[in-house]
């Protein structure tokens, strides 16, 4: 069986000459030239500092060589064992099989017996290509996942957020060298840009939105703009022309979509309230309507300055026309494999009924707008579903379902350039990143990046950890009774 591959969890398109695509795989970022299909630059997020009580630093000579790190185990281990990271143990999940904690993919599993006490540091699922600096070899850190990518053409930089070290960095568009970095207050959960693309907005898991000016000389802390009391899931800037005003639109896990004035962010303009489940994605279209999607069976189209719902775009009914019952059962089964930890907590109050076996959970993980010669189209992707849903505009300006473009695996991320859609799927042997040109009469998916030469293989014991980090949208759904926001 082909080994599992790590899908590309974030894509950003750069409208430069030549056009480029940025791909984030776990903690590694690659810059791909679209015409050549090969990587021109890569960058790996530095490992996050160890959490919990400070550990003794271990200097391992060859940082990239995991073997050495393993071999170095016994020495620091002997020194560490009296001060074994017991306080940290409580915070970390215990991997079920402690003995295999040290093995990594390409390297044969070294004998863990000399390092038998180290695994008790309840190590987590280690990803390949992670921590290279060996700061604490006795306790492996989860990789410093890249969360969001945002290309800023005017400044020739790429904004990157990383989740473990809660940092926002600006990387040079070509060389991927770090130009600037800010430490964020909390783990970032959404990113956007405003002020003619000179101010970056970051939303975090506590619902606060901070702004960061790209050009400022001092490396200042971000400015707190506004806050929900809920995990901020989506964030976008918007404006009206009559009167000429700017706004920030934010969405959270508690079904709110809020429109706030900018820069006077203490003045809330209005709310767009109709969702009954978490909202995970927002898009302001070219004709200044807002499309919102999340855990509901429909997407909302809003006259957002008035807070008025214009249309509900059906999603669930559309899926019934695309997938057969068997396919739906298979998808539902795969989806149940995501968020295992939370589902376990839900077991007590859920008695699964027969018809739930085939019930796909709808969790919108992408809404994008494409321009084809005929007009605009809206592309919607759902977590765990191998399809791109295409919606076109009717003569009266309403959105209607046009077609579903089947993909080889669940679509994880996407980026749009005019009529071309670049997207990544979670497959074992398909392409890593595919493209489709919607302007074609019969759009056909072709490969852009095959994955060869890129470091994307995932060790078996790390698969569960990978799935947990990549498939997070359905986990926003409430109903766990007492599950607190992390």
């Amino acid at each position: 069986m082909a080994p599992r591959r790590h899908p590309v969890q974030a894509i950003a398109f750069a409208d430069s000459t030549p056009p480029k695509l940025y791909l984030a795989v776990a903690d590694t970022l690659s810059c791909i030239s679209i015409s050549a299909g090969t990587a021109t630059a890569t960058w790996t997020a530095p490992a996050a500092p160890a959490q919990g009580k400070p550990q003794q630093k271990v200097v391992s000579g060859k940082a990239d060589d995991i073997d050495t790190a393993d071999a170095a185990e016994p020495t620091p281990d002997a020194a560490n064992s009296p001060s074994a990271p017991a306080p940290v143990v409580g915070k970390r999940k215990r991997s079920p099989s402690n003995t295999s904690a040290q093995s990594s993919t390409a390297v044969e599993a070294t004998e863990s017996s000399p390092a038998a006490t180290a695994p008790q540091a309840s190590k987590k699922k280690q990803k390949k290509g992670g921590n290279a600096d060996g700061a604490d070899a006795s306790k492996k850190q989860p990789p410093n996942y890249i969360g969001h990518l945002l290309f800023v053409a005017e400044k020739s930089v790429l904004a990157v957020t990383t989740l473990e070290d809660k940092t926002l960095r600006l990387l040079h568009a070509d060389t991927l060298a770090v130009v600037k970095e800010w430490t964020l207050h909390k783990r970032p959960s959404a990113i956007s840009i405003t002020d003619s693309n000179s101010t970056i907005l970051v939303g975090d898991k506590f619902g606060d939105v901070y702004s960061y000016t790209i050009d400022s000389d001092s490396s200042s802390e971000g400015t707190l703009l506004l806050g929900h009391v809920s995990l901020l899931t989506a964030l976008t800037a918007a404006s009206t022309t009559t009167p000429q005003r700017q706004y920030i639109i934010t969405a959270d896990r508690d079904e709110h979509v809020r429109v706030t004035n900018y820069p006077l962010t203490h003045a809330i303009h209005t709310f767009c309230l109709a969702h009954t489940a978490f909202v995970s994605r927002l898009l302001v279209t070219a004709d200044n309507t807002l499309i919102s999607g999340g855990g509901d069976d429909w997407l909302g189209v809003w006259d957002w300055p008035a807070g008025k719902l214009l249309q509900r775009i059906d999603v669930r009914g559309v899926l019934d026309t695309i997938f057969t019952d068997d396919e739906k059962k298979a998808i539902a089964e795969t989806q149940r494999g995501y968020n295992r930890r939370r589902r376990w907590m839900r077991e007590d109050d859920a008695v699964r009924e027969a018809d739930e076996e085939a019930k796909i959970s709808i969790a919108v993980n992408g809404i994008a707008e494409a321009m084809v010669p005929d007009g605009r189209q809206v592309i919607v992707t759902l977590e765990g579903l191998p399809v791109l849903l295409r919606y076109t505009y009717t003569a009266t300006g309403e959105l209607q379902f046009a077609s579903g473009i089947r993909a080889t695996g669940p679509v994880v991320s996407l980026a749009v350039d005019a009529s071309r859609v670049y997207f990544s799927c979670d497959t074992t042997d398909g392409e890593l990143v595919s493209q489709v040109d919607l302007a074609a009469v019969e759009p056909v998916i072709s490969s852009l990046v095959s994955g060869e030469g890129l470091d994307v293989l995932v060790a078996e014991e790390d698969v569960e950890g990978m799935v947990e980090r990549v498939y997070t949208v359905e986990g926003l759904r409430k109903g766990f009774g007492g599950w607190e926001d992390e």
Partner: protein
Amino acid sequence: MASSSSPAPNPTKRQKRIDYRNSDHQDALPQKKYYRQRAHANPFSDHRLSYPTCPADMDWSDYFPAYFSKKRKHDEMVEEPEDLKDQPANDGNSTPLDTKKVEIADIGCGFGGLLISLAPTFPDTLILGMEIRTQVTAYVQDRITALRTQSLSKKSEEKEDVPGGYQNIGIIRGNAMKFLPNFFEKHQLSKMFFCFPDPHFKARKHKARIISPTLLSEYAYILRPGGIIYTITDVEDLHKWMAKHLDDHPMFERIPEDEQEEDVCVKIMRTDTEEGKKVARNKGSKWVACFRRIEEPI
């Protein structure tokens, strides 16, 4: 097979509480001992609360039956309010149904002391208490029902009665930190009360305080220009915190002390809440700060 020879076992405390709550009390006031609950509840966790999707969807008739008719779905239009004027619940008032909106909110109303005192003071205004704890909410609901029943019987016996008959107060279980925009439209409220809120002393818990820079923007949204926020606490540190954040917020200005003392609401807030009475018993101090919501600067 019950053993008939042995005497019935003593009902446990829990059983007593269940029995008490299930029985009909007519107009007897509820007893607090059957509603005890710990003081703290985490506002960030999911409480399986029920709240409307938006203010227009809220059925207020459960809370103010004298003022609202049962809500029908959007598709079925309600008859003209005039037709329903003769409904018995509308205790003789000439106010047509479904015309008023809640204008005063007591956030974290506890056992309802402020609500009960505000009711006759503003007999034509709808006042809503919001509380996150289930037992305490149930207590206040039972208390309001009992007071309404007493008031109606007094009316029928032509005895003197409290203006409004307690029909204008209600309580709902809710999380005010998250869901106020679900209940209230923009600029709906004229007064908001924050009486003896949880101080959350530790620095890492400060984000759970009910007055914070980000939450103040939400309160400014549901308060109308000219509306007033009333705060009172017996913890001086919390008082300074609240006053500072309200001062710093561009949409609020402090009401000077002389004007503050002339406000009847301040007097009621000082003396009529259960927490305030407890503070007085323990000879503690109370700090008051009131702020007016100013016009939009835009």
